[in-house]
């Protein structure tokens, strides 16, 4: 893996929410790096804090009730937590673009698609309205929507889901950002459209050289897109590394569980899915030990008492599991699951 420039470095980010039931510790000390031109996939089940992490960096969580209690997010030497402006310009939409999960509700229903794309250019690039609209038409064509000129003057309700997501992508890329955050960009779309959107993202990445942060719970999407993978659980990073490390040399029981839960093709219709039993811990009062303790098949006594730290298990490969501690006498089982090779290539 070539070492490319780090464009975004997040360190020890902690986010809390005040609710009637108490304080929810949604993100509990997350650190990661995003490198130029590469794709970082953040995976984990619903409520593990993957979206909150990125939204808090982008200043999109409502505050209050949300609150960033510690940590930093540095974009090319500039801290984003306290200042979202570089040279008086908002980095959101210019240096970092964002695509959301549900394209049907993520676009303004009373504005034309062209206007919504052009708006970003007017604000960040100082384009005139007509200049911006002309560029918007080019962008719509770039994301492979036919008849771009006509489409630009239409409203979101006249578009299909796939076309809306393409428009979202065109909008987020209008100012050629160096990072694109894609928050479950294909979850709301059907499978054939999913593949088209992912292809589009990969092609555009090659063309523009931007970094992509892909938030997803679909390991198939990860296998197709990612260079690096970060697995989150209960507001923490439990494993991170290159895609090969995490997929073939997984070093955390939760990663194993996720992979085992993934349906494989060759077993066919008679295959029984292997779920991870139990549910994630209560984030009102996170456990003092390992967050995965209650569901972990390899749990040891110390896992309940001692909170594990991220341990290095290889070059740029980390796992938050006591089994990886140098003093651990137990081996991590299940390092090779037979159908995995097929799964990784699957979609």
């Amino acid at each position: 893996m070539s070492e490319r420039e780090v464009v975004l470095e997040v360190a020890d980010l902690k986010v809390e929410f005040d609710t009637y039931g108490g304080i929810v510790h949604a993100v509990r000390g997350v650190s990661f790096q995003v490198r130029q031109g590469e794709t970082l996939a953040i995976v984990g089940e619903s409520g593990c804090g993957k979206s909150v992490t990125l939204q808090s960096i982008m200043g999109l969580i409502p505050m209050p009730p949300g609150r960033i209690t510690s940590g930093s997010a540095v974009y090319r030497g500039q801290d984003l937590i306290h200042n979202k402006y570089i040279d008086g310009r908002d980095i959101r939409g210019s240096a970092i673009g964002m695509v959301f999960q549900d394209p049907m509700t993520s676009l303004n229903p009373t504005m034309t698609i062209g206007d919504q794309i052009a708006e970003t250019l007017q604000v960040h690039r100082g384009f005139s309205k007509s200049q911006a609209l002309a560029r918007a038409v080019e962008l719509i064509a770039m994301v492979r929507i036919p008849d771009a000129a006509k489409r630009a003057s239409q409203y979101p309700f006249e578009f299909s889901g796939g076309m809306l997501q393409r428009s979202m992508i065109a909008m987020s890329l209008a100012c050629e950002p160096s990072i694109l955050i894609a928050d479950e960009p294909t979850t709301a779309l059907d499978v054939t459209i999913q593949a088209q959107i992912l292809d589009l993202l990969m092609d555009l990445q090659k063309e523009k050289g931007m970094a992509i942060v892909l938030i997803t719970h679909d390991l198939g999407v990860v296998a197709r897109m990612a260079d690096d993978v970060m697995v989150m659980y209960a507001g923490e990073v439990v494993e991170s590394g290159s895609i090969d490390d995490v997929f073939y040399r997984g070093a955390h029981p939760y990663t194993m569980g996720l992979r085992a839960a993934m349906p494989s093709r060759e077993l066919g219709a008679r295959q029984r899915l292997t779920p991870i039993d139990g549910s994630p811990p209560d984030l009102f009062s996170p456990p003092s030990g390992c967050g995965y303790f209650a569901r972990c098949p390899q749990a040891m006594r110390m896992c309940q008492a001692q909170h594990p730290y991220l341990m290095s298990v290889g070059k740029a490969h980390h796992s938050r599991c006591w089994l990886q501690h140098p003093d651990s006498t137990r081996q991590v089982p299940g390092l090779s699951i037979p159908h995995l090779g097929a799964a990784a290539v699957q979609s």
Partner: protein
Amino acid sequence: MLRYILKRLLHGLITVWFIATATFIAMHAVPGDPLSGEKAMTPEIRRNLEAKYGLDKPVVEQYRIFLVNMAKGDFGISYTQQNREVNDIIREGFPVSATLGILAVVFAALGGILLGALTATYRNRLPDVVIMFLVILGISVPSFVFAALGQLALVKINAWTGFTLFPVAGWGTVMHMVVPSLVLGLGTMAYLTRLMRSSMLEVTNTDYVRTARSKGLPPARIFLKHQLRNAILPVVTVLGPAIAAITTGGFVVELVFAIPGLGRYFVQAVQQLDYTVIMGTTVFYGAFLVLMVIVVDIVYGLIDPRVRLKA
């Protein structure tokens, strides 16, 4: 769009016909007639008068005559006022009532949208709490109380300052119009404020507003282009009924402030069973309201492309 408007106008015409018929039936169901209030008259005189005014004809025949005349735009002559055509009464009173009503609607809509957006922005903070308290007051207190209180306040203020900026009653200058239209629009404004507040809060939490923020747009632009326009839609929807509420409420305010609008004639006519005036003013008012509702629908279409393009 044109087809849509024509369709709405046709529906409106049918509605007006319903209003006319219902009023006609209700009016004739009331005991007595325009002549029964007069001082004692011999049966002969009465018969002559009935024949003159067509009151001796069968009700169905009267209805037919009324409809034909209405279609020609002729509402007849007042029974109780000398030599007054109903059309003259409308021509004289309506512009006054309409001015008052439109001012009140504009005041209610602008005030409601502004205050609603403001309370949503300052949700659960001091401005929100204070305004929402006043809003509850505005919704609960009927307009005639506000009219009386407003007038009393004006009297006191004028006496205290020694000069009259806003006259206590009457009609004629812009200054005459301010206080009555404020009073008249107050209840509706309070209602619209509530509606706008909840609609604004809803819009603020939508995905597309989050998208707008992720694009790094300045807050003012997000507010105007992404929040306000979408939040206004439910407010525009109720503007039609709101106009109806304001115009009917107008009768009372006109009375209190001695404004020579239609309301006064309307109330008098009902008391005296002045058939032609009742029919004329009711049908005219009905038609006006129906037209306003259609106008509101068209405006709605202009704001929301989904309505405009799918219709």
